[in-house]
């Protein structure tokens, strides 16, 4: 029997873990503290007597109130939500079918197509926005949610396709062969057997796609011009920083509220999403 030494476990496990947790969570803590801090605490120097940079003794919801009442934040939140959901749904549907085809159907050039899709994912958005801006203008979609709902899939579809292709490949092909013998068409077998079995993979692709479009900045910055059409990441940065004045309290309140939906989405599906990335199906 191996005798576990307690100090070893502390040294190699608990202490590094604690350091890591503090390191990763500190920005969130800072964000929360700043959002709750009254203005007089925010705009005084750290060297002042009684300064408490790491906590506040007079928490206030004033910044949240200002944010919701004086800015278009509710609009931004709604826009972001709508755009993220629609573009995720579009991308998931395309990704499921494309991923299935690339994983299962043997057709001429299927491998080339797979690689080509991957390469499009590698093209940086900072380059792609130039031609896309042209297209958006020609189609008169600028400053409408559709500008983003249709451009986000340009990087979400390749992403979903690749993630799902990998997942579909882990599903034994006998499952669908059996379904086809049982009386399903190829399409029927895909919809009734493969998709339900792939739910962990589909959910994790969905969460990632949702997060990516929720946090997207460049396209949102370029294609949306009026204040109330903006998304949270762009709105917070462009409306709450005026010249060289940072409305820190409201900025952080906006960031905090903006990250809540993503955090909820993750925690809700965390189990699925772990199996989606790591795992296959056990018969």
């Amino acid at each position, binding site marked *: 029997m191996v005798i576990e030494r307690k100090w070893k476990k502390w040294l190699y496990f608990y202490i590094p873990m604690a350091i890591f947790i503090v390191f990763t969570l500190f920005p969130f803590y800072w964000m929360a503290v700043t959002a709750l801090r009254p203005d007089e605490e925010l705009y005084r120097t750290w060297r002042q007597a009684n300064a408490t940079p790491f906590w506040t003794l007079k928490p206030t919801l004033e910044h949240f109130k200002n944010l919701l009442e004086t800015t278009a934040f509710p609009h931004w939140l709604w826009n972001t939500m709508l755009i993220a959901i629609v573009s995720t749904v579009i991308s998931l549907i395309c990704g499921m079918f494309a991923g299935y085809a690339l994983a299962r159907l043997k057709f001429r050039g299927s491998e080339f197509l797979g690689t080509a899709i991957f390469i499009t994912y590698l093209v940086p958005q900072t380059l792609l926005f130039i031609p896309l801006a042209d297209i958006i203008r020609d189609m008169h979609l600028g400053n409408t949610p559709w500008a983003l709902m249709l451009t986000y899939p340009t990087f979400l579809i390749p992403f979903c396709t690749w993630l799902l292709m990998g997942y579909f490949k882990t599903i034994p092909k*006998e499952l669908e062969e059996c379904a086809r013998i049982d*009386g399903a068409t190829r399409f029927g077998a895909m919809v009734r057997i493969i998709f339900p079995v792939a739910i962990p993979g589909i959910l994790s692709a969905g969460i990632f796609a949702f997060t990516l479009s929720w946090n997207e900045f460049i396209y949102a910055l370029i294609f949306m011009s009026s204040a109330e059409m903006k998304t949270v990441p762009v709105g917070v940065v462009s409306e709450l920083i005026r010249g060289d004045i940072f409305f820190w309290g409201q900025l952080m309140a906006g960031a905090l509220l903006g990250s809540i939906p993503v955090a909820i989405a993750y925690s809700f599906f965390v189990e699925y999403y772990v199996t989606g990335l790591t795992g296959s199906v056990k018969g």
Partner: protein
Amino acid sequence: MANVTIRKLNKIYDGRFHAVKDVDLEIHDKEFMVLVGPSGCGKTTTLRMVAGLEEITSGEIRIGERIINDLPPMDRDIAMVFQNYALYPHKSVYQNMAFGLQMRKYAKDDIDKRVREAADILGIESLLDRKPRQLSGGQRQRVAVGRAIVRHPQVFLFDEPLSNLDAMLRVQMRVELKRLHERLETTAIYVTHDQVEAMTLGDRVVVMKDGLVQQIGEPLELYGNPANRFVAGFIGSPAMNFAAVKISETGGALWADAEDLHLKVAPQLVDRMRAYIGKAATLGMRPEAMQPATGADPADCCFETVADVVEPLGNEILINFRAGGAAMVSRVDPAMRVKAHDKLRFALDPARMHFFDEASGAAI
């Protein structure tokens, strides 16, 4: 009538790999036909072509009078049991078994009746609400079989269904499958690489190698009269013993000679062996065809050797020794007292002597 007729069936992958070559098979109604052979011999490919999961390069497959070459799997009226069971992991046992019937738009009561009937036959009524991952290997196997039998298909296809089970369970399921087949009286095609499974289950057995059918016959016929050296070596455990011999004629009799063997060719083989006088051939002897000499045996079918390794298995003893320049195994009565390095004298039953052509391997 659900006989399956396979004519000149070929499968060529990507225009290069010829997996199945001109296979001709006639599987009778209600027959349990086993395809057996080493891996890569084309047996599974043949089965998958019958199932419609693999395109047919050339040839024809009929079930009854229907040519099914171009029918999709769902229209062939077959059911298949896969090696990994292929149970739908998100469906309960009941739903797994009902799926095929639902797809075929059976009435709800009818589905329920059939599923419960099949579950009863297989003894899995208590598992109907479980998910596949909550089942043991043997139970999954039963569900997979149950899913196949609910539809009352014309033909059952089995693709190595027992190879994922442990040895004990495999023997038990083998018997159950045989019993099930007798009860259901449905034509079955069964693929395995295990010759014991093939011999115990099959009404007839097809031995395949490199995409070619080597021999088709009843189990005992394959064992007693193998068509070639491959079948002789593949069927039977321990395998048939082979020795390279030279055929000669002395004193009106034919003799098979190797370094320490001098055996008289059995009378029933003499006519056929005459063509090989002065030439080489392969002598084949089943382990049980060589027994310790009693003294009453004619001297011209005996040989002497030294026991190498002795394997006392309880119901039999396997004696390993060398003779004719090859390692050989004999299966003897467990009452015999023998240890390693004992000098032994064996007598070969002349009626069970086999000869094979050196070059082609065909039985002479």
